[in-house]
C-alpha cells in the first residue's frame, strides 16, 4: 500500500468500510473522513476503534458532532500531504460530488508517486453493474477530483448473500474495465464469512463489518 490511499466510488460501494479495514489492517497514522454526502455509517463513527489501533481520525471541524451533516472539513486533513512521514487513508463521500472535495488539496499534493487514488466498485450496485457504467463513473470521479484513478478495488460483497462466485463475478467485470482502461485491479475484499479457494486479482484482503451493527 502506498503512503496515502484515497478511496472514492459510487455511494454504497463500501468505501467507508474498506477505509476502516485498511486503516486497522495497516495501522496507518491517520484516517481522514471527508464524507460530506452521507449523514450515517461514516468512518468517523468508529473513532474509538480506530484510536485503539493508533489511528488518528480527522473529520469535521465540529469534532464528535455525529449528528451533523454540515460540510465542514478539518484542516488536519491536509497534514498527510504536507508531512511526508504520515501514512493515511482518505475516505471520500460518494459520487463525483463527494470526490470534488479533493480539489482543495490540488496545490499541496507534491508527492504524487506515493499516492493511490482507488475506486471501490461493487458490481451489485445498479450504477456500477457493467464495464461501461464503471468507466463512466471513473471519468466523472476524475473530472471532479482532478486526480487520475490509479487502481480498482473489487468489493462485490452482498452481506449474507456473498459467496466466492459473487466475488468472481465482480472480478470478471473489473477485468474488462482493466483491459479497456489500463487501470489495474489492486485489491479484492472478501467478507470474513466467505469460504474461498484460490486467489483473486490484486491483493486479497478480509473485510470485517465495522460500521454496521450486527443486526443490520
Amino acid at each position, binding site marked *: 500500500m502506498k503512503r496515502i490511499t484515497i478511496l472514492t466510488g459510487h455511494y*454504497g460501494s463500501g468505501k467507508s468500510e474498506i477505509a476502516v479495514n485498511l486503516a486497522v489492517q495497516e495501522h496507518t497514522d491517520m484516517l481522514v473522513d471527508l464524507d460530506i454526502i452521507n449523514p*450515517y*455509517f461514516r468512518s468517523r463513527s468508529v473513532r474509538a476503534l480506530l484510536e485503539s489501533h493508533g489511528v488518528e481520525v480527522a473529520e469535521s471541524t465540529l469534532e464528535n458532532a455525529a*449528528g451533523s451533516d454540515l460540510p465542514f472539513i478539518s484542516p488536519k486533513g491536509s497534514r498527510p500531504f504536507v508531512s511526508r512521514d504520515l501514512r493515511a487513508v482518505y475516505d471520500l463521500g460518494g459520487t463525483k460530488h463527494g470526490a470534488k472535495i479533493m480539489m482543495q488539496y490540488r496545490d499541496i499534493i507534491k508527492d504524487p508517486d506515493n499516492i493511490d487514488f482507488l475506486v471501490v466498485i461493487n458490481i*451489485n450496485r445498479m450504477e456500477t453493474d457493467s464495464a461501461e457504467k464503471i468507466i463512466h463513473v471513473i471519468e466523472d470521479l476524475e473530472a471532479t477530483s482532478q486526480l487520475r484513478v490509479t487502481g480498482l478495488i473489487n468489493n462485490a460483497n*452482498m452481506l449474507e*448473500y456473498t459467496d466466492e462466485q459473487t466475488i468472481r463475478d465482480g472480478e470478471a467485470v473489473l477485468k474488462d474495465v482493466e483491459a479497456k482502461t489500463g487501470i489495474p485491479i489492486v485489491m479484492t475484499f472478501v467478507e470474513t464469512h466467505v469460504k474461498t479457494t484460490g486467489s483473486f486479482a490484486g491483493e486479497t484482503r478480509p473485510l470485517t463489518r465495522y460500521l454496521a451493527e450486527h*443486526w443490520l
Partner: protein
Amino acid sequence: MAKVLMKGNEAMALAAIKGGCDAFFGYPITPQNEVPEYLSYHMKENNRVFVQAESEVAAINMVYGAAGAGARVLTSSSSPGIALKQEGISYMAGSELPAVIINVMRGGPGLGGIQPSQGDYNQVTRGGGNGDYHVLSFGPETLQETVDLVRHAFDLADYYRNPVMIAVDGLIGQMMEPVDLDNKIASMDLPTKEWASNGKSGERGRLNKIVSLHLDPYDLEKHNLKLKKKYDEMVEKEQRYELINTDDADIVIVAYGTVARVARSTVKTLREEGIKVGILRPISLWPFPEKAFEKLPESVHSLLTVEMSLGQMHQDVRIVNEGKRNLAFYGRAGGVVPEADEIADEVRKLVKGANA
C-alpha cells in the same frame, strides 16, 4: 430481476417507479435526500414528472393537484417536513385523493436532529391535520419489506382513494441491503379513475370537482360517514403484523421497524438463557394490528413495548391490552437506537420472580 444491493432511500425511490408512480413532488431534507436525488435522474429517464418544489407546503399541494388529475403521485420527506405537509394530507383525505408519502423519520420535536427516530408515531397514526380522517400507514423492518410495501402502496392508495404513508426511521433509509425489486406482490383490480378532474368533461358529459369543502353540515356529516366506512374497511382488511417466537412465549416484545431488528438479537440471546420471549411486530401502524394481540397464547403474561420514542406506540398497546396483561415500556429517543442487551435487561426484569 436478481437481488441488487441498494440503500433504503434509493430502493424506495426505485420501488415507486416500479409501482407506477407518474409524478414526484418534494423538497430536500436529511435523512431522505437520496429519494429525490434518485428520482431526479430516473423519473425523467422513464418519461415521468419530477419537481423539486420551493417548499414542503408547495410540494404537497402539487401532489394534491396531480392526484386530482388522476396521476399516481409520490412525495417524500422527513419528520419536520412531514409536519409541514399535514394540512395538505388532511385536504387529500377530505377530497379522497390517493397519494403515497414516504416519511424517513428523524429525531424531534421541532427541527430535532438527523439521526434515526420513531418519534413520528403519533404524527403518522393520528395525523397532524384537522378533521376525522386516517392515513393508512406502514412501518416496515427490512428493505425487501419496504420496497414491496412502497410498490403495493400505490394500489392501496388508489383503491381507498386515500393517502398511504410508509414510515421508516432514518436507519432503514440509510442502510444497505440486497433487494429484489420484482418480488411478487399482491396486485389489486382497480377501476379507472372516473372521478379524476383531467380535462375530459366533454367526453364524460359532466364536470368532476375535487373539493374538501362541504358547507352544509348534513352534507359534510354524510361525507364524514362515507370516509368512516373506508377507514372501517381498512381496519378490517389492512392490519399487518408478524409474530416471532410467540407460540410458547411468556413475555412478548412489541416493536416495529429498526427496533424489531434489534429485538431479534435480544430474543436469540434470551432464548439461549431459557427465557421464553417473542416479538409482536406491527407492520401496519394505522390500523394498529389489534388482531395480532388476540393471537398471542395465554402463556404470555407480560408485554414490553420498545420504541425509538417515549411511549407513543405504547398508548396503542395499552388500549388493545385492556388491562389484561402486565405492561412495560422501554424507549430511546433523539436518534439513539436501543441496544440488544438494553432490551434484554428490560425483559429479564419481567421474568416472574426475578425482582420479587
